[in-house]
């Protein structure tokens, strides 16, 4: 995936929602996008998924390219074969045309003419992966928010896109459900799917993503490894959330209670760093 100097303005607006974004993402890379509300995260998702410019009008300049195809030169129906998007609000994604979750999950596959037997296999496999096999016969509308989000994610996975774009896919999920879904997304990346994930839950980004991009005011503010980005002092100053491990270690430094050079971003790193304190003491 390749973005060059991408700038986009929604219709009737003055300020661009995205400004001069340049970004290369490798196949199978798991990239998390963080940023305050209004930073342009969802707009970036829409742009990657081809909704900008094919559905939202407005003014797009620069290059958006996935698997060697430019979004300008592609129709939305071609584009979705390469890029799948799970919306922030799963309710907006459910087709309304299907009575059961199973049928809902097959909807995308029907539209691209996948043979019936393969459709069944793909749906069954994807449901197993995301842990929703028991919801197959339920109405998509009878589900809780968290369950709907799993269905929305699964309906993209069955399409087997090259690039998976997820806009806060776990916002309505319980904590352990969130962790499980992050595990599923990680596995998809390991199978070679490129993942672009917008998320506020820093603890799980730290543990699962390969790379973190911080967006602010429609621009790339920071771009690097989870550790580089998530320990940057600039984050808190600019309204980004950080993990409690990072934040408590930063305070512990002032009290002389964190001795490592690098701040922790995960539980394991925090345990390691704070344990060091005790070994130092016994050895001295």
């Amino acid at each position, binding site marked *: 995936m390749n973005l060059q100097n991408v700038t986009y303005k929604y219709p009737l607006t003055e300020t661009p929602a995205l400004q001069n974004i340049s970004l290369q993402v490798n196949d199978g890379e798991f990239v998390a996008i963080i940023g305050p509300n209004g930073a342009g995260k969802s707009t970036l998702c829409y742009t990657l998924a081809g909704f900008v410019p094919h559905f939202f009008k407005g003014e797009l300049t620069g290059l958006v390219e996935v698997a060697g195809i430019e979004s300008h030169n592609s129709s939305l129906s071609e584009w979705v074969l390469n890029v799948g998007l799970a919306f922030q609000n799963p309710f907006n994604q459910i087709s309304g045309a299907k009575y059961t979750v199973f049928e809902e999950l097959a909807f995308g596959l029907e539209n691209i003419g996948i043979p019936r037997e393969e459709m069944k296999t793909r749906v069954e496999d994807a449901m197993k992966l995301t842990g929703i096999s028991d919801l197959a016969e339920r109405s998509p509308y009878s589900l809780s928010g968290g369950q709907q989000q799993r269905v929305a994610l699964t309906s993209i996975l069955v399409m087997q896109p090259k690039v998976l774009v997820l806009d806060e896919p776990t916002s309505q999920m319980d904590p352990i459900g969130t962790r499980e879904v992050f595990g599923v997304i990680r596995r998809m990346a390991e199978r070679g799917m490129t993942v672009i994930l917008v998320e506020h839950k820093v603890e799980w980004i730290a543990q699962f993503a390969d790379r973190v991009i911080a967006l602010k005011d429609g621009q790339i503010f920071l771009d690097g490894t989870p550790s580089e980005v998530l320990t940057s002092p600039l984050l808190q100053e600019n309204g980004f959330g*950080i993990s409690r491990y990072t934040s408590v270690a930063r305070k512990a430094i002032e009290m002389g*209670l964190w001795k490592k050079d690098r701040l922790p971003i995960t539980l394991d790193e925090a345990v390691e760093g704070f344990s060091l304190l005790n070994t130092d003491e016994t050895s001295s």
Partner: protein
Amino acid sequence: MKIEISDLQFYYPNGVQALDGISLTIDSGEQVAIVGQNGAGKTTLVKHLNGLLQPNQGLVLIGDWDTTKHSVAKLASRVGYVFQNPDEQLFSKTVGVEVAFGPRNLGFNGEQVQALVKDALALTELSDKTETNPYDLSVTWRKMVALASIISMDTDIVVFDEPTTGQDAVNIARIANVIAELRKRGKTVITITHDIDFCAENFERIIALSHGKILLDGKANEVLGQEEILATTYVDPPQLTRLGKRLNFNPTVRNEEEFLDVLSKDRS
């Protein structure tokens, strides 16, 4: 105003039992968080507080009012309920009109309504957006409008359903401020949340639900320390509680202050 729930049972029309014998008392001015896995019955439970749902069996008392004997409109003077999705709640053309709707319906006079609206808008940092259409605001600010439109009703009990979903760090801090101010005013605040760190930092009592039953109910640290039991309802303890446990801290800690306190005592 006290809330008393005894042996509450509730079945959805399709026969699914959503609540299975809930009994609990919440005293006036308590701050309570309700946690638990998707489908545990959290929203179903709080919808009984303002009569949106009626028990199939058991009793829900708001002060001295039995919720089956009073209309939703009447109960709205005692219990304010902020929906999970602000878009299911907002309908007025301007923020000011939206926030005035509740208190006006409760029968406050013009002057009182004005004062309540002004206060609610100040508390939610919306004072400069009075004339804006709620749907011209970002979802972050629409959430604040939803909060303001309930706060302006000045009910003794305020219920928030997932207030931090999809909110950034700055707005989560704003919402925490609102809750702290309501506590100061002596309001009872009941909040459903999956954000366990937010829960740990802002609530003194936590109720964990699982399959329509109360799994745990107690002081925040007591509940959050029960890692294995919480896991059965898909809840992880807060980050710093888990960290404290891995470092063999005793007692359970749940926020930065407690964590650093134990850490520095351990060293001395």
